[in-house]
């Protein structure tokens, strides 16, 4: 009996250890961005190699984020035959597409977490891209998702692909032409950005495009379409969020015409909320019984704290900032590209130029607003672990700031290349994707 108890305890510990180290989708479990590590790196130098466990070159150009399951890191990329391609970084407002329509190869890669060794790679598709990309985006911008057995990669117009954890193609789907671009001129194509999410035994994909937008769920087992719901939407780039409320689970999307809640099992729309800004990119995050949705394409830059469990049109009327369904809201302060970070009792929102604002998550009161060190261009979303917040920049540095009600700058860690992808946590290891390399950053790495 006693031995049985010990075995159970050991088994539970093993499960917790495995769960804690997994990072199954964009920004990890529930898109929280919060890692479970207890001794994560704080200071390192990606150029000199200080506290870098390993560094490996990644072919192609992509802003999709790494994901982690067990000892494996999964990554997607798109390799242009034009080898001169790179990101056009910096703060600018151009709407034109990248001109690169040379033949590409779309790949899914698997790396060993401890050594950075390539375990397997699969070519999903080869050909000329069916749509163009934004100069800051890529032909592989959606982060893959996994449940440990199946890895699903979404390449927009080039299709949806499911692989086993060993790299065997299980199924693929063509979801049509994904014309994601500027609402004001559809010829300015930017490419898709929303990442797939897994709910139970389905993978859910948001396809907001210039015409005939929809959200759909496909069986992880064989790719069969389980449900599809049409959306009166224009292009959007936010990843849907699965939010577990007290009464039910909600699938939350942030798009230009409305923020919406769905039943993730059947795709039925539960609620809508507006207004939202015209080019929404940040993913909804949740905690404290609230769903936080931001977007930041001027002039509307809202932040909403939505209570779970409500139905119908939740739009606040008569100029008010709260209601039964909306705990608090703000008309300004929402971020344009980075997803906000809910860590402890504070909601951190960083804008594209590195101005960080911390809000009391429950009341919406702003606790501080501060430019992070020298500022710069911030596209990747921040992540957090063990009391620290991590902000990668296009300028090639990862800034570390202490979490808490008072702004406290900790470190500026050079990586030597632009970062537009959101990092992943693998326990105490920070997996960072730069323009050309994948880095594993760990405290006291040789």
């Amino acid at each position, binding site marked *: 009996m006693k031995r049985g108890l010990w075995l159970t305890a050991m088994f539970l510990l093993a499960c917790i250890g495995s769960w804690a180290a997994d990072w199954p989708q964009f920004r990890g479990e529930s898109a929280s961005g919060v890692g479970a590590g207890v001794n994560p790196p704080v200071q390192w130098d990606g150029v000199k190699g200080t506290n870098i466990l390993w560094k490996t070159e990644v072919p192609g150009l992509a802003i999709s984020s790494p994901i982690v399951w067990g000892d494996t890191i999964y990554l997607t990329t798109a390799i242009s035959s034009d080898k001169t391609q790179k990101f056009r970084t910096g703060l600018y407002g151009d709407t034109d597409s990248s001109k690169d329509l040379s033949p590409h190869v779309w790949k899914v890669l698997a790396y060993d977490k401890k050594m950075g060794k390539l375990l397997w790679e699969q070519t999903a598709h080869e050909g000329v891209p069916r749509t163009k990309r934004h100069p800051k985006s890529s032909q592989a911008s959606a982060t893959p998702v996994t449940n440990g057995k199946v890895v699903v990669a979404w390449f927009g117009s080039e299709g949806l692909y499911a692989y086993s954890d060993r790299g065997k193609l299980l199924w693929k789907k063509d979801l049509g032409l994904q014309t994601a671009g500027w*609402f*004001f001129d559809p010829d300015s194509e930017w490419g898709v950005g929303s990442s797939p999410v897994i709910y139970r035994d389905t993978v859910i994909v948001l396809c907001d495009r210039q015409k005939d937008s929809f959200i759909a769920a496909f069986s992880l087992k064989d790719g069969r379409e389980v449900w599809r719901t049409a959306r009166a939407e224009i292009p959007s780039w936010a990843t849907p969020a699965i939010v577990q409320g007290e009464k039910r689970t909600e699938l939350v999307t942030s798009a230009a015409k409305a923020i919406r809640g769905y039943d993730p099992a059947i795709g039925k729309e539960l609620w809508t909320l507006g207004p939202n800004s015209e080019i929404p990119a940040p993913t909804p995050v949740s905690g404290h019984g609230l769903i936080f949705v931001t977007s930041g394409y*001027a002039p509307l830059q809202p932040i909403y704290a939505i209570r779970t469990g409500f139905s119908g049109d939740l739009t606040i009327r008569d100029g008010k900032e709260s209601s039964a369904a909306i705990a608090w809201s703000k008309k300004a302060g929402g971020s344009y590209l980075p997803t906000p970070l809910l860590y402890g009792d504070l909601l951190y929102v960083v*804008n594209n130029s590195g101005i960080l604002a911390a809000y009391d998550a429950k009341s919406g009161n702003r606790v501080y607003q501060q430019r992070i060190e020298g500022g710069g261009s911030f596209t990747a979303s921040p992540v957090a672990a063990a009391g620290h917040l991590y902000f990668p920049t296009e300028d090639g540095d990862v800034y570390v700031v202490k979490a808490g009600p008072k702004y406290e700058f900790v470190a500026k860690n050079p990586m030597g290349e632009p970062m537009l992808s959101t990092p992943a946590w693998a326990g105490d290891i920070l997996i960072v994707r730069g323009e050309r390399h994948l880095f594993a950053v760990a405290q006291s790495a040789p």
Partner: protein
Amino acid sequence: MHRIAWLVLALIPVDLLAADLNEELLTAARKGDVAAVTQLLEKGAAIETKTAYGQTPLYLAAMNGHDDLVRFLLEKGASPDVTDTFYRAPMLTFAITRGHFATAKLLIEKGTGNPDQLLPQVVQVGNVELLRALLDKSRPSQAALDSAYEGAQQRNQVGVAAFLKKAGAREPAPPPKIDPKLLESYAGNYKSEGAPVGIKAFVRDGVLMMQAEGQGEFALTPKSDTVFQFAPAQITVEFSSPSSFTLRQGAMSYLFKKAVTQ
């Protein structure tokens, strides 16, 4: 009652047809397809039909630099004085900022826009031919001409500056001396309901400086106790009190108020 029902039924297909034609016209205009636009107009599509953002066929043709179609639509009587509902920008602004200068010239020759608002945009891109077309067609105010000249000088746009001088621009007057206490009273953090970013005002070495969030700082030249300019970007800042100012740039105007520190 029966007759009304028939009337409604008879009207629906016509409305749908018109909507389809108009949608096709907007698509053809976006692509610059003169033949398709001609056919669709002959079939009854509306020349001033609009997208959800208020863009007409001419607007779409202009912002994409389709000169032949712009010429055709102007000849057909399409209005060049259309402002969209999202950016609140005239089509000429997009033609200029996207580098479609031949298109911009066609619109300017048609006499569209306020010359005082257009001049800074044209000077900014430094295209002398476009500047000539604007000044041939309209007469900006002396203040706008002087301000554009000052900006061109500061940006070292020698050809543009010479052209403006020839057009009657005057040399800038030496800046007036401002009481340092008054200057210091303008310092602070400002916010505007209409502008997406806040602005910090501060004084450095006796010069009023400003910096918008995420952007570089710039020095303002005083024109009076309350009016300051940053000529290279054609920005005018006018203080109504030490705690509020109006920032003007081209057709845009924002009221900024000093933020209360939390």
